[in-house]
């Protein structure tokens, strides 16, 4: 059966409600944190702000700590409550989601490190338009996936799953134009490579957002669509 965020908080044990609610709240806090990391890493690059880039790089530890904390809470719920059905799926989805959020955090700090290298080299702004564009796109995906998680919203989750294809093609076309830059001007190779790493990190963030959206579908529907091509999904069945 489908679950909704309302029915989910009607356990006879108020304490259990509270524990599950805390898991979600902490996951959202972690999500907000990594989303800010991505945003600041990209801003640092685009604005040439090396102090901001350093801050993002150093902040990764806070994200990692939050992952450990949430995982620990999940372990406790599993051990003490032996959750079943949607409660079990919630705990599993949270565990999986923290792992993807932590990796988004890693990608953000990768972006920050490459931004620092670019700022230090003082090289031009080739590929920055693409970086800005793709970063906005994947940040929206992360945000939407987290909103879908908070609201048990299948429609929004499916939208994120489909967005990932768009990001992939934007990424491919950006790589192609950067390759042209490198061929035209071999002196730019080192800086263009850094931009490519940043684009690669952004594309990976899109993949992680896609995973987060898939966990929402698992949470609400009990269906694991991780290895199903988005185009082959029977969406009508999922929305039923």
């Amino acid at each position, binding site marked *: 059966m489908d679950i909704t965020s309302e029915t989910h908080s009607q*356990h006879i044990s108020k304490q259990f409600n509270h524990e599950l609610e805390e898991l979600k709240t902490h996951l959202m806090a972690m999500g907000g944190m990594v989303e800010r990391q991505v945003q600041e890493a990209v801003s640092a690059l685009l604005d040439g702000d090396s102090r901001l880039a350093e801050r993002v790089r150093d902040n990764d530890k806070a994200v990692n700590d939050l992952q450990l904390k949430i995982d620990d809470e999940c372990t406790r719920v599993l051990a003490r409550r032996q959750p079943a059905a949607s409660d079990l799926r919630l705990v599993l989805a949270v565990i999986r989601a923290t792992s993807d959020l932590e990796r988004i955090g890693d990608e953000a700090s990768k972006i920050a490190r490459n931004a620092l290298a670019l700022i230090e080299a003082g090289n031009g702004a080739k590929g920055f338009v693409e970086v800005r564009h793709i970063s906005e796109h994947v940040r929206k995906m992360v945000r939407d996936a987290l909103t879908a998680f908070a609201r048990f919203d299948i429609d929004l989750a499916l939208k994120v799953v489909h967005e990932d294809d768009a990001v992939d093609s934007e990424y491919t076309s950006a790589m192609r134009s950067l390759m042209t830059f490198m061929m035209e001007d071999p002196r730019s190779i080192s800086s263009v490579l850094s931009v490519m790493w940043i684009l690669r990190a952004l594309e990976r963030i899109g993949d992680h957002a896609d995973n987060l959206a898939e966990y929402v579908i698992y949470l609400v529907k009990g269906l694991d669509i991780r290895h199903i091509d988005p185009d082959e999904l029977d969406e009508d069945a999922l929305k039923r």
Partner: protein
Amino acid sequence: MPVFDSVTDPASPASAVSTAAVIEIPASASCFEIEGLSLAYGDTPALENLTLRVPRQRVTAFIGPSGCGKTTLLRALNRLHDLNDEVRRQGHIHLEGQEIHAPEVEVAELRRRVGMVFQTPNPFPMSIYENVAFGLRLQAPLKKRQRDEMIEWALRSAALWDEVKDRLHDSAWSLSGGQQQRLVIARTLAVEPEVLLLDEPASALDPISTLKIEELIRSLKSRLTLILVTHNMQQAARVSDYTAFLHAGELVEYAATDALFTNPRLAQTENYITGRMV
């Protein structure tokens, strides 16, 4: 392991209750076929129009809140209600194709084929040996050596032999609660039943004894059909292959245990197994 995963469409007329989600077990793989079974104690209905098949050589659990009818259903399967004049019954129960209420069915033989173990261990006030021999003595006479062999086999099957082999003639009351329950199971197994009905068999036992009983249930399903009534949902999830959720005398959902405990189809089941207000 569950082998049948097709579930009838809740809207299809084949399901007993229009809103129920009931797995379709093929007749050829069924031990019990229950059809339109209703049962009332006087004017108080206890079971309403239940239709389900219980698969052979699998563990099937009946779960549900107190008063939902799960024990009533279990007791109906070996006609324990015959002893109560107040009970009124409608519908059919077939065991391996034969209606158990048919006039030619002898109740004593039915109860040999369909053994029952209750919540509180009830060994007879006699020795361990005599407890297991009790049912055998009611049957055709055996030579002592044959009887001894049967008793050893039954006690081994009930995973009790190693603990009692040196004191077979001690009183059954000298055993611990968990051992007594396994002795009762051995007593039931000695007459070679086809089905074992277990009504909360571990609810009076400590966790270690409970695990031994659960292990025993698992080991017995290679030759028996086991039906378990339990309030302990983790127990149902641990040992059963199929789970039927009953509520207010009706079958709500019947599915492979893996499916029922990870992704039940109906809200009522979900609420019950996750401890939400129904």
